[in-house]
């Protein structure tokens, strides 16, 4: 599988190129940047379901921590601590901390699952400078129509790409 690679080092030029690519409906496979460019996500209509999932993880965290506390302190081993009720007002502290822990860990796991990443995975793509300050647009060549490639190369050149390259796997 071969890919067309355009290397940028300025995010404004990259955004300009993204506008033109969207206008010609280019098959953009991936854009790799060293920092989050939120306008890019908006332009390509990339939406994440992680915020919604995180809310449900939070709900799950609250109820499960409460259930665990209720089971230990009220049902299984009720202790008389200074005559205070077993269903204690200090529960929210532990519920809060437990909820944060459960939500964060589940969100990280979800992120790895959605990105299909796991420890020891072989890199799908690598290019010099990609871990440094370079931004890269990848285009799947197999989906290109014959005269489209020269059009895309034109776009990259006019928007000021540092380098236009091909990548073979």
């Amino acid at each position: 599988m071969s890919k067309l690679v355009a290397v940028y080092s300025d995010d404004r030029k990259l955004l300009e190129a993204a506008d033109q690519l969207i206008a010609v409906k280019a098959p953009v496979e991936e854009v790799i940047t060293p920092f989050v460019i939120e306008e890019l996500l908006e332009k390509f209509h990339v939406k994440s379901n992680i915020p919604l999932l995180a809310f449900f993880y939070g709900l799950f965290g609250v109820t499960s921590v409460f259930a665990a506390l209720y089971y230990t302190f009220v049902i299984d081993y009720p202790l008389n601590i200074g005559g205070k009720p077993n269903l204690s007002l200090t529960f929210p502290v532990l519920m809060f901390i437990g909820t944060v822990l459960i939500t964060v860990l589940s969100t990280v796991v979800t992120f790895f699952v959605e990105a299909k990443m796991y420890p020891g995975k072989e890199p799908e793509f690598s290019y010099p400078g990609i871990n440094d300050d370079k931004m890269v647009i990848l285009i799947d060549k197999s989906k290109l129509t014959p005269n489209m490639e020269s059009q895309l190369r034109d776009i990259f050149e006019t928007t000021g790409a540092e380098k236009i390259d091909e990548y073979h796997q």
Partner: protein
Amino acid sequence: MKKRFVFTKKLKSISFVLMLIGLITGVLAYMGDTHRFWANILFSNYMFLLLALGAAFWMSLQYIAEAGWSSAFKRVPETIASYIVPAFVFMLALVFFGMKYVYPWANPEGHIEDFAKYPEFKEILEVKAPYLNKNFFIIRTLIFFLVWFGTIGILRKFSKKEDEDKQGALKWFEKSRFFSKVYIFAFALTFIFAGFDYLMSLEPFWYSTLFSIKELISGFFHASALIILIVYFLNKKGYFPFMNSSHWHDFSKYLFMGSILFAYAWYFQYMLIWYGNIPEEGEYYFLRRFHFSQTLFTLNIIINFMIPFLVLLPNKLAKNPKVLLIMAITILLGFVLDVYLSVFPPLVHTFAGVGEHIHPVFGLYEIGILLGFIGLFMFVFFKNLAKRKRILPVNHPYIEESLLHHNAH
């Protein structure tokens, strides 16, 4: 784009009608029940004083963070803060004429029966007398307002200078940034004592070091709700035509964050006192929960935390100005409830006598005087806003950023 705020006749007459209602009910209350009259003056005036100070805190925060998006709305918190002038007048009236009706420590003669029943009360008051006495209370009130007038006045002065000075606007911005830090420091330091004096000394037998922090957080949170309400109104009238969903979203973040902060402050004081389980500390919550009203006590945390937290959680609702308006009004009603629960239970308690079961009072006097104060606040706010030549800051370094503000998502 409209340049200058116009204080229309309609607004003026609304504020005058509200003030008239307040005046009439005030006079009726003074003739009918002097205790309740002064309690209401403290209740309403303290609320708007806290909102004014909280709004100045909000503005200082924008300076310190060098926030660009909010610079176009700078006039709103700045003008809300101008309410401290009438607040000073009412506090002085309270201190000079109403102190003995409201604060039990200022009126030992009125509590001779209580002292007979509970002799330790007298002892506690004698121990606290070096701090809680009339003269020192007056001096403290003067110091607080002097500090607040000074710091807020300097910020307003710099803001005016910035508008006039074309070349050196940045210099005034830098100075405002420095004095915002001074204001926050001075406000925190003085308000810890002010909260102690004005509200906590209603129950001189009780104290909590967390009380003023909770009030301070509540002031910041509810002042951002008031700012949203006013910005919504001015936007409706066409003064902020550049506003988009990004501005609303950033405003809603303050409500969302504030609701969590408020819940935290509300909970830490309650939980620590509950856990400590010392009778003289627990008395505060015991009075409110079991002798006053369990419903209102629970409603406080639901209105101020649960509703804004759940409603402002989805992205789409947080950007919707109408939802934000409803939330801002709800949260301000929550503020009325919160201050009501601070001020009224001990006062009703004193009227009723120690240990008796009491019922919440909220009648014509409370509503009328509150409406009067709302009218006064409207009048002061719009009058001061109309004084400024332009509703948008002129030479503010971040004004362009605010006009073109756009967040992704």
